[in-house]
């Protein structure tokens, strides 16, 4: 059993949520709810599961995390800053002219960003290639790819889903941030039964509460679930998690928080 420091993870998650809200507010950008839904996932990865060293971000043996749902990158920027990959003040460059941090991350825009994402359906093929390179070169690193459920409409996700089990890429883990919403619609009618779909493609699958940091850390720390198979985690999440008036409201896929929204939201997350 993996030793999980739950209060620490929860505190980190609150700090990252506050950063997400402040970035969306200052940058006047959309996708705040998409970022909030994957905060706990990213905190469990960056603060527990991943073998990484922020002081040595290019170490060849590091685990790789690709946020394939690139529009959720405020959560990734916030988590990387929290983990010490770059100074806090870099976050002020988010959605600022001349800054390094766009609304979708560019290649190696800051330490810790392994691949540019933003167009959906790209992370899993790239992650499969990275996992294959590890196998060919006998490297030890593992690859984690965080996808959105809306992203699972993309055909390339399923091309990669077919490919990885054939190559027995046990170093690859796909995590679906299953918050139930794409940009304009509920996803469940098309996605269900989502875990069965991944199983049918040959993945070893576990379903989990995507906001329970204890379970997340335990399960993410235990991959691969089966030898010789890639792992998939269906993380049931809430879009906008942590801010009551943003939860499950598609308005917050688009609307940046104003001054009042920010104050109300920060009170709710009790950072």
């Amino acid at each position: 059993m993996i030793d999980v420091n739950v209060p620490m993870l929860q505190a980190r998650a609150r700090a990252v949520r506050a950063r997400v809200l402040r970035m969306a507010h200052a940058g006047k950008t959309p996708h705040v709810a998409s970022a909030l839904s994957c905060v706990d996932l990213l905190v469990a990865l960056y603060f527990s599961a991943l073998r990484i060293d922020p002081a040595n971000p290019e170490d060849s043996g590091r685990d790789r995390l690709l946020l394939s749902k690139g529009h959720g990158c405020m959560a990734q920027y916030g988590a990387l800053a929290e983990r010490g990959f770059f100074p806090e003040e870099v976050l002020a460059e988010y959605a600022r002219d001349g800054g390094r941090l766009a609304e979708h991350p560019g290649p190696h825009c800051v330490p810790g960003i392994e691949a540019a994402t933003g167009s959906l359906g790209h992370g899993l093929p790239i992650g499969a290639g990275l996992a294959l390179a590890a196998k060919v070169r006998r490297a030890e690193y593992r690859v984690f790819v965080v996808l959105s459920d809306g992203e699972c409409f993309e055909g390339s996700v399923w091309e990669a889903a077919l490919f990885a089990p054939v190559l027995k890429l046990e170093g690859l883990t796909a995590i679906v941030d299953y918050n139930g919403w794409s940009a304009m619609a509920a996803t469940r009618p098309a996605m269900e039964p989502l875990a069965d779909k991944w199983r049918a493609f040959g993945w070893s699958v576990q379903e989990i509460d995507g906001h329970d940091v204890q379970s997340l850390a335990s399960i993410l720390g235990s991959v691969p679930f089966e030898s010789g198979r890639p792992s998939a985690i269906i993380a049931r999440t809430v879009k906008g998690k942590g801010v009551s008036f943003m939860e499950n409201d598609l308005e917050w896929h688009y609307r940046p928080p104003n001054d009042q929204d920010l104050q109300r939201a920060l009170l709710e997350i009790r950072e």
Partner: protein
Amino acid sequence: MRAAFVRGLTAAARQDPRVILLSSDLGFKIFDDFAAEFPGRFLNVGVAESNMIGVAAGLALGGMRPFAYSIAPFSTLRCLEHVRNDVCYHNLSVTIVGLGGGYSYGHNGPTHHSLEDIAVMRALPNMTVVCPGDPLEVEPAVIAAAAHGSPVYLRIGRAGDPVVHSGPVRFEIGRAITLREGRDCTLISTGNTLALAVEISGRLRANSISCRVLNMHTVKPLDEAALRACAAETRALFTIEEHSRIGGLGSAIAEWAAMNCISRPLHLFGAPDAFAKCTGTQAYLRALCGLTVEHVVDTIAGKLANVPSC
């Protein structure tokens, strides 16, 4: 050129253990020897080009030098956004191989013709576009692509492409090759029209027109020094390619000429802005759009008659 590609890739793989070949279910039997010599370095990824390109990008991020192989429209247009975002945006050492440039797949029809690939690949930042002119250029081009260190689109013909060079070729990406000297005009070719260009030059010589043949095997970046010399030393420039006249070699040179105030007459030979209207062999379809010795010779002679001498 297909067999030459396999020979070149085998040589590259012997030199560099990072070279790995992905195919989207194309190349029946031709990679068997490669796969036997380099276990784990040939992978049929299935009929899934988007995934192939993403996997290639991931392999390159992981330190490999992948080649991604399919028929040209499938390795370029089908998965274009993956080429753009995964390969070019990250500026990775991935070579996209387009088999069957132009009308090589004749009777297979317009789904398999590739008349837009140069235009589209050329527009992508970080992408180098290489179109070898004959099988002898393909081998060194593959080796150069493997060593290039950034994205390359390698457009080759199919089987049975004529050999133009008489021996081994000194091939350098971005350095055009002069196949025939000439003083009156220059015919600039890229890819599989090279043999045609050389034949045209010979026929013009019989008509007392001295036509230089410049093989611009690299369409991006253009060999601007070679172009400047042609513009200074000959009276008119002609381009020939088995590709749409929109966006290909001729367009690239027209852009260069416009930006550099080159006042020489310039005329483009290539495919029209149209899908093939009927089925046909490569030779038949070439003839339909004027890519024949007779048509090009007549056109060049007619154009030159109206151009004052240097």
